[in-house]
Each structure stands twice: as C-alpha cells, then as structure tokens.
C-alpha cells in the first residue's frame, strides 16, 4: 500500500478489514437502490399509461442519472475502504480516509476525552466494529470503521492507556 500525497511520509498505515466492503455494500444497497426504485416509479406510471406527466425523456433521465451515480459510488467502495488507514504514533493517532477528497487527521492521545466502540447489525454478523475518538472539539471526527472486534478492543485499551499517561487539560 503506497502512501498518498498529503500523508506525512514514512507512515506504516494499518488498514481496516476487507470484510468492511460488505458492510458498505449493504449500506449502499439500502440507500441507493431504494432511491432509484422510488425515482423509477413515475417511469412505470408513464409506461403503463396511467400518467401523462412527466414526459418520457424526463421519466427515463432522472432514474438513469441516479442509477449511474449509484453505480459510480458502488465502484468506488472497495477503493474507499482500502484508503482508510490509521497509525499509532508515539504521541498521536493518525487517521486517513478518502480517495478524491482526502483527509489526514492527527489526534493527540492527551486530548482524547473518551473512545466509543459501536457495532451495527451487519458489522456484528461479520465480527467487525468501529472505533470513534472524541476530544473537546466537535470538529474531531476521528472514526475508524471496519476493525475486527479483537483489534477494536485492543485499540481502545491502547488508546485509553496512552490517553491516561499523557492526559492534558483543555
């Protein structure tokens, strides 16, 4: 895995579990297929001759565009999952994400207020969990999804221990 452009050089990124792609696929299906189906309803109505409006081209275009966008997002999912990474440095945790819109975040251990572990139904079936760090700032959106449950527990313990050792005030 090569390091991307905005990352600090020489970081050995830990990647999330490839099984997280399945979680993202389920989420994608729930959101996008439903949207495409709803938007296709006028097309069906027009084809059945029940509705006179909208015109056929509009009724075809809208769901088609939605479908294309959804497929594009579908194609991106495996790459997006591969782009998520985290690295435990001596004093802070680095979290990166994104392919087109990249983000690299550094959260000092001493600033962590608490660490959340969340498990959804699909994640539970796959033995995954997601870890979320909170600081005093609402802008700290450090979210590491798709960790194997054991790795998530280890990370949480590790973060808590390091946070305690380097605890700072606000």
């Amino acid at each position: 895995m090569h390091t991307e452009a905005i990352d600090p050089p020489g970081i050995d990124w830990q990647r999330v579990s490839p099984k997280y792609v399945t979680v993202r696929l389920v989420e994608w299906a729930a959101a996008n297929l439903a949207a495409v189906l709803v938007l296709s309803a006028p097309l069906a109505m027009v084809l059945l001759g029940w509705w006179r409006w909208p015109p056929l081209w509009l009724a075809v275009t809208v769901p088609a565009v939605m479908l294309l966008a959804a497929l594009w997002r579908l194609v991106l999912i495996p790459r997006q999952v591969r782009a998520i990474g985290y690295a435990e440095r001596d004093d802070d945790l680095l979290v990166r994400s994104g392919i087109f819109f990249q983000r690299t975040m550094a959260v000092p251990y001493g600033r962590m207020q608490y660490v959340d572990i969340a498990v959804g139904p699909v994640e539970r079936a796959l033995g995954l969990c997601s870890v979320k760090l909170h600081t005093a700032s609402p802008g700290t959106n450090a979210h590491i999804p798709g960790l194997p449950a054991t790795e998530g527990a280890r990370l949480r313990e590790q973060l808590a221990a390091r946070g305690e050792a380097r605890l700072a005030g606000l």
Partner: protein
Amino acid sequence: MTADGHLPGQPPAPTAPAPPAPVPDSTETSDGDWRRVHPASPFVRGWFALAAIIFFFGRDLLERMLQGQAVFENGFARRAPWLLGGGALVLAVAVLGFILTWYFTKYQVSGGYVRVNTGFLFRQHRQARLDRVQAIDIVQPLLARIFGLAELKFEVADAGESAVRLAYLKIGDARQLRATILARASGAVPDARAGTGPASGPAAGTGSVPDPGTIAGHGTIGGTGAVGGTASGELYPGDHPARPAREAPEATVLAVPPSRLIGSLLLSEQSFVIVVGGAASVVLSAVTDNRAFYFYLVPAALGLAAGYWNFFNKGYNFTAAVSPNGIRLRYGLLDTQAQTLPPGRIQAVKISQPPLWRPLGWYRMQVNVAGYGASGNAVEGNTRTILLPVGMFSDVLAMMSLVLPDPGTDAPAAVFAAGLSGRDSDGGFVTTPRRARLLAPLTWRRNGYAATGTALLIRSGRWWRHLVVVPHQRTQSMALHQGPLARWFRVADLVLHTTAGPVAPRLTQAGLDEARQLFDEQSARARLARKRQTTEQWLRQVVPATAPNAVTGAAEVAAPLPEAAAGDARPHHQQEGQQHG
C-alpha cells in the same frame, strides 16, 4: 444569606495544619454549608407570568372604567366568594410552587467542587469541578438589577453542554461567590499559608508581554503585573485563612465609547443591506408606480430596529479589565453582564474587519471558550463570545496581550499588523503559492499562516479581513484536507479543531509541502506546549524553585498598591510586565 459566608482554605487544604476554627458568629457560615438562593428569585424569574396576568385583568378593568360601566357586573356579589376563592387557590398554588422551588434549590462550594441541587418533583444534583472552570459570568437582567440581584453562571469543561446556574443571588453574594470560586480554582487557597505560589504567578500570567512599549504605548499592560502582585498581598492572606476571599483587584484596559459602538452599528453589513434594499424598493415603486413596496419595509424596519437595539443594549459601555483571575468583560445598558475568563481558557481568537470599517481602522474580536459555544441560546452565545465589539488596532493589541501574554515573538505589533492588513510574506507569513492563484484569485496573497513560539496565526480574506490566533497548547486535533482541484494545484487545507464557537481555524490553500511540514511541526509544538502546562490551576503553573525570590518579588510588586488599586486606566509604565513565568 450573608455577604461573607465562604471561608477559603478549610476542607480542601489537607496539607495545611488545621487552623483553630473561627468562632461561628451569626454573620458567618462555615465552608461546606448548603446555602440557598435569594427568596425573591422565583418571583423575579416568574415576573413575566405575573405581568401578563396583571396586564390582562388590568386592561379589562380599565376599559370598563373608561366606558363608564360599572366595574363589577350585576350579580357579581353572588359569585364573588367563588371567584375570590378560586383566585386565592391559584395564587396559593403558584406561591407554594415558588416557595418549594426556592426551598429545594441549594448550592455548596467545598472540596474542589460546586454542587447545585434543584427541583422538588424531579430532583437534579449537579456538581462541577472547580479547577475545570472555564468562565464565570454574573448576569443582571433589568428586573434583577432593580432588586439588586444577579445570576451567576459557571461554565465548566467537563459538565457537558449545560453550565451551572445560580439565579438569583444578592449582587454582593454573587461577587463573593465568584471570588471564592476563582480563588480556589486558581489554586491559591490551598497554598495560602505558603504564600509563594500566587506571588509570581499573576505577574507571569497577566503581565509578561515582552515590551509594553511595543504594544502601541498601552502603559496599562505593564501595569497589570502590579495588579497581580497586589492581589497576592490581600487576596490570599496566609495568616488569616478564615477570611473570605476578596475580589481580586483589577485594572481597566480599555473601554468602548458609545459613539464608536453606534458608528460600528451604522457601518455594519446589515446597514449596507438596508440601504441597498431601501434604495431598490424606492426605485422599484417609482418605476412600477406601485406603492405596495413600502408596506414590506415596515416589518423589515421593525425587525432591524430590534436587532440594532439588541446589539446596542448588549454592547453598551463595554469595558475590559484585567485581574489576577483573568480577563473581566463588562457590558450592557439595561441588562448588564460581567464575564470573567481565567487565564488560558481562551481556545481561539478571531480578529475581523468588514470592508466598511477599514477607513476607520476598526476591528472586532471573537473567542472560543469551552462552554460558551455550546450554550443553547444562540443570541446569548453570540454576545458572550465577543471579546471586543469594536476597537482600534491598539485595543486589539491590548486584548491580545491579555489573551496571549507571551506572544512568542519579538515584534508582536508588527506580526499582528501583518496578519490584519499585510499581504505576501510581510511579518513572516507564508501564503498560498503562486501556482494556485487561479483557485483564489483575490485572496491568494492574503491566505497564509505564521507560527510564533506560542501560537499559530492564520490570516485570510481580502475584503473581509480575518486573522485567527490559536495558542499551541489549545489545539485539540488537526487534519489535512485535499480535494481533486487542490491536488491538481498541489495545495492542501489545514484545519485545527478547537471547542465549539464562532472561530473555526482553517488554513486554506497552503502549498502542499508547507502544509505537510506545518502539520508535523504543529503536532510537535502542541505536544511541547502541553507538556509545559501541567495543571489547570493557573496560579500554580509556576516552577516552585522560584519561591524564595517570589516572596521578595511580591513585596516589591505589592508596593504600588494604591496606584493600581485605584483601578484606573492611567498609563503607568512599570517593569513588572517583563517578568516571564
């Protein structure tokens, strides 16, 4: 309810040998006692309901009298007992509710905590750690002011979004409680017998601007060191631990004259919109020969007048003062408010200048303070986060010297001037590289950053000028962002995360290499700054090795007491400001 009920330095000072307990006379209560708010509080809070009832009945009565009708209808005598009985019942229930509310609202300051219990059906116990205090406000709405009452608001970092509120106390009690809380939160009280901690702390905290002369001749900055020193003499009496904490003395740093406040309102963005909108509607009605446009102006004018009034009412008589316990801001025409921000509690500062203010050289300052941003009421949050409603450049420097006592550079005035009005590499700023000028054709020469020893300065905006200052030790976390366009131009954004508030520090379109380097450097700087700051108690953030010197220093510093205690803004150049922590 006594005016001097709080005794500092008893239970929270386990190391100090217990002094003989003071004779508990009638005017003093001991430290851990539960106390109640003023009995009139529920009535002052519920005045709106009472006023509404009086208004409706009174109007009815008045109309009848004016119309010459009998005040009471026929047959009133028959129903009178029932009406009176019902009215009395409602009144009794209301008064009982008020009394119960008052009876079950208690507060206590002891053992490093403030505890407040409220409610009688749904009881609520809230406690807040004193050393996590972020700000203390004393608020006096008009009615409370008439009765000499005040509300005390206490923001803590670890209490979630809601602050501790005590409404209402007598104004003297509120000040007394504020002094007690601040004396304990500062760490001064447990150390009272040693008498060393406070001595050099305030000087370091408030007066360590390297050269007061460079701060645009504001002699009062140098004078603040003297204020800090005098505080240790009388605030924390080592021989009298039973004496209640006194209010820390303070020196006024600046005041905003009403004329400038009015001017700033007239030249604000909304005035511009009004003028343009008014002109447009006049032109439209002239062209279309339609009078209807005027009708839209009436509600708009009413709303705007209310907005202006609100701002004027809140910003009137704005004064900033400095005391060993932090920055004091006072303002208000009808409703007055006094905020105390202890040293080191300001997370980020934004200095901004709309284009209409530029000819007059005015600036506005806003701050992020933990607890302020999260307060539910948006209007209240807005006014509380204003550090300076309108001020000249010298005022900005004076306030910055309070917020950031050690600017970490030799020429703070030059750096801040470059941050506010400079472009390109003035004052050591690093701007957006030339290759990315198409991304920000107007602002690429302004967008930039400069790092001093203690803070990161981020400047932006060509017409609406902004300068954001984030102390290194207040950075929570940070992130680099880059979109596809930015990647094409090899630039990136650096976002610093601070607590919720009006300031959102974001360095836009920095060169990729510079941004990456800053990301690393900033992590290192924040780490170093965090290590340097060891405790939340600001008077204790002093190396103990300086203790013997500090005692003599305190004596010297305490000498100009009468001058400083006068509390005036008279410039007196003193060298205490050069004591670095």
